[in-house]
């Protein structure tokens, strides 16, 4: 009969032995390497990484290219902007001048019309005032003359004689 204690001791020695553990560990590694095909995986990963790097490189180039294009496209931007601004300023100047001229014309026209209306109103007012004043003056003169004639009837004779005296001129005018 095998003594179990001996077996147990031997087992303990084996298990506790570093060499044994190392060998076991190595054997497990070999087995795993064989089972997983780690080389292939590494190769695959390597390819992927290379591909990623290539793509990154391409993207970088493309980005650089785009940047270049962008830089190129904005290269003349200040000049173009200056031209646009200048054009806009010129247009604005022309438009403002036109607006100003038209506004001035309109103002002149309004002023002219207003002046004409004022002149016409003034003339009408003066005319009406003159008419009223002259009528009133003539009426006053007439009234005064009538009073004087009433107080001095001999004046009638004077006016009749004046009429007779100016008759020559009137008859000549009528070709008598």
């Amino acid at each position, binding site marked *: 009969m095998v003594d179990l204690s001996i077996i147990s001791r031997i087992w303990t020695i084996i298990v506790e032995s570093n060499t044994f553990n190392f060998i076991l560990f190595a054997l497990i590694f070999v087995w795993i390497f064989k089972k997983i095909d780690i080389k292939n995986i590494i190769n695959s990963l390597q390819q992927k990484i290379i591909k990623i790097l290539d793509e990154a490189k391409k993207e970088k180039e493309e980005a650089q290219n785009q940047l270049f294009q962008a830089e190129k496209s904005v290269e003349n931007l200040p000049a173009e902007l200056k031209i646009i601004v200048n054009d806009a300023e010129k247009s604005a100047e022309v438009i403002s001048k036109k607006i100003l001229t038209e506004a001035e014309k309109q103002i002149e026209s309004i002023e002219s019309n207003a002046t004409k209306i004022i002149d016409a109103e003034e003339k009408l007012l003066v005319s009406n005032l*003159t008419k009223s004043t002259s009528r009133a003056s003539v009426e006053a003169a007439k009234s005064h003359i009538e009073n004087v*004639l009433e107080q001095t009837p001999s004046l009638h004779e004077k006016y009749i004689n004046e009429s*007779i005296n100016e*008759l020559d001129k009137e008859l000549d005018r*009528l070709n*008598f």
Partner: protein
Amino acid sequence: MDTKNTLIAERYSDALVQIAKDGRLSYEKINADLEIVNNILAQSKDLMEFLTNPTISAEDKKGIIGKVFSEEIDTLIVNFLKVLVDKNRFSVFEEVLKSYKKTLDDVNNISRVQVTSAVEMNEESKVKLREKLEQKMRKNVVLELNISPDIIAGLILKMGDNVIDMSLRHKLEDLSKNIIR
């Protein structure tokens, strides 16, 4: 009175002038008789209406003319009035009288001037005015005087179609017009 009636009246007036020219009656006698007829017609509107009424016969009208005028005027003038009735033209009698007076004035070289004054003219002024007019017009002037206080003072003369306004009213109107201009 319209132009047509004036022309008709002138024709009848010419007939009267012819009577005068023929020496059957003087211009003045014809004028005097026409004035008598005119005065009677003016006093009696009924008589004028009777003589111009178209529904009354000419014989009746001529009978009345004979009765009313025979003792007042010459037979020739009575007959003249009867001719007017026969021709149904009695309505133009007044125009005939005017036309005849105008002809009579022409014959006598008379010009009638209507004179309007504000007050009555004194004799001296009348003579002065008439002499001046006669001298200028080389006609005998008869002044027909009217009084109108409306003219204020001065004179207005009307000779035919011509008017000479020398009144103070006219001068004031002129003054007013000149001020307004």
